[in-house]
C-alpha cells in the first residue's frame, strides 16, 4: 500500500472525468455545441503530453549531468507514453474537427505541426534502437531528446500563432479561456489534465520497473 494512493487517485479522477465529461453541464455555443465536451479529452491530452515530454527532457538533462542509466530509462519511457497520448490527442482532435470544421484533417498549421512533432519523437525511438551499447545509446539519445524538445515547443505553440489557424488562440482568434471557459468546464478540465498526467506516469512507471527487473536478471545470469 506504500505508493498506491496516487494510482487510486488516478482511477478516481479518470472516472470522474469520463462521467462528468459526458453528463456535466456545459456552456452552449454556436457551431461547437455539445462537442465542447471534447475539451476534456483532446486539449487535456495535449497538455498532459507536453508535460510528460518536459519531464522526459528534464531526466535527459539529469542523465547527461550525472550519468546514471536509470535516468535515461525514465526519460525514454516517459517519451513513449507521451507519444501514446499524442496519437490519442490526434484521434480525438480528428473526431472534433470532423464535426465542427467538416473535415477530419483540415489543412491547419497546428495539425501539421502536431504530426511533425510525433514524427520527431518516433525518430527518437528509432535512434534508440540503432545502438547496441547501453551507455552510448543513453548519451546520444539524451542529446537528441533535449534538442527535439527545444524544436517541438516552437512547432506546436509558437509557429501556429504566427499564421492563420482554425484553432483558438491563433491568427487573431482569441484563446478559449478568455470568453467561454466558465466554472463548469474548469471543474472537469483541470482534474482531467492531472488525471491524464498520472495515467501517463503510471504507464511509464510499469515499463521502467520491467526494464529494471530485466537488467537485474541479465546481470545475475552473466555472473
Amino acid at each position, binding site marked *: 500500500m506504500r505508493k498506491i494512493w496516487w494510482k487510486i487517485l488516478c482511477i478516481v479522477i479518470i472516472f470522474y472525468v469520463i462521467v462528468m465529461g459526458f453528463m456535466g453541464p456545459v456552456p452552449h455555443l454556436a457551431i461547437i455545441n455539445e462537442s465542447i465536451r471534447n475539451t476534456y479529452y483532446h486539449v487535456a491530452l495535449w497538455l498532459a503530453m507536453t508535460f510528460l515530454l518536459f519531464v522526459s527532457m528534464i531526466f535527459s538533462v539529469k542523465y547527461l549531468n550525472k550519468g546514471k542509466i536509470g535516468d535515461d530509462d525514465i526519460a525514454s519511457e516517459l517519451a513513449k507514453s507521451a507519444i501514446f497520448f499524442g496519437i490519442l490527442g490526434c484521434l480525438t482532435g480528428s473526431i472534433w474537427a470532423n464535426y465542427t470544421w467538416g473535415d477530419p484533417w483540415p489543412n491547419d498549421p497546428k495539425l501539421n*505541426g502536431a504530426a511533425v512533432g510525433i514524427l520527431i519523437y518516433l525518430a527518437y525511438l528509432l535512434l534508440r534502437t540503432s545502438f547496441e551499447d547501453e551507455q552510448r545509446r543513453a548519451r546520444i539519445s539524451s*542529446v537528441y531528446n533535449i534538442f527535439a524538445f527545444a524544436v517541438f515547443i516552437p512547432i506546436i505553440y509558437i509557429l501556429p500563432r504566427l499564421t492563420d489557424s482554425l484553432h483558438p488562440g491563433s491568427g487573431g482568434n482569441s484563446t478559449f479561456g478568455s470568453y467561454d471557459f466558465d466554472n463548469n468546464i474548469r471543474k472537469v478540465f483541470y482534474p482531467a489534465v492531472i488525471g491524464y498526467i498520472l495515467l501517463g506516469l503510471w504507464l511509464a512507471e510499469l515499463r521502467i520497473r520491467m526494464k529494471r527487473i530485466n537488467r537485474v536478471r541479465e546481470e545475475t545470469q552473466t555472473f
Partner: protein
Amino acid sequence: MNEIKTLIWKEVTLEWRQKYALSGMLLYVVSTVFVCYLSFNLRRNQLTPIVWNTLFWIILLFTAVNAIAKSFSQERYGRLLYYYNLCSPQAIIISKIVYNSFIMIMLSTMGFIFYAFVMGNPVGDMTLFAICILLASLGFASVLTLVAGIASKADNSATLMAVLSFPIILPMLLMTIKLSKNALDGLDWSVSSDEISTLLSIDLIVITLSFLLFPYLWRS
C-alpha cells in the same frame, strides 16, 4: 579563437585536398536542377512562382543533407580521437558550423544562379532573397551539423540522418519558403520582418543548443 581559426583552416585544406567531395556536391546541385528542368519542360507555362519557390528549397534541402552528412563520417576514427585530445569540443562544433555554413552559402548561391538560368528568374526583390538564402544556409548548416554528429555515431547513419533531420528542419524550411515568397512578390520589407526575426531566433536557439550539447556527444 585561435583554435577555431586553425580548425576551420584545417577543414578547408582537407576539402581542397579531396576535391571530389566539393565538386561532387556542385555536380549534385546542377544535375538535380537539370532533372527538374527537364521534368517540367513539357509544361513550362505551368511553373508558377509558388512551384518555382518550393522546388528550389526542396533541392537545397536535399543538397544540404547530402553535403553535411559527411562532415563527421569522412574522418577516420583515429583522427577523431586525435582531435579529442587536442582541442575543446566547443571549438570543434563552432568550426564545423562556420565551415558548413560557408559551404552551404556557396552551394546555394551556385544552385540559385544555375536554377535561375534554366528555370527563369521571377524574383522581385533580390536583396531580400539574398538575405533569405543567407539565413537558410546558416540554419540548415547548424541543425544538420549536430544531427550529423548524432547520426555518425550510429550504424545506419544515412537513413538516420534523413529521419532525424527532416522533421526538425521543417519549421525552418516553412519560414524560409514564406520569406522567399515575399521576396518573389517584391513585397515591402515590413511585411517580412516577422519571418526574418523568427528565422534568426530559430538559428540562435539551434546554435546555442549545439554549443551546449555537443561536448556530451563528443565524449562518447
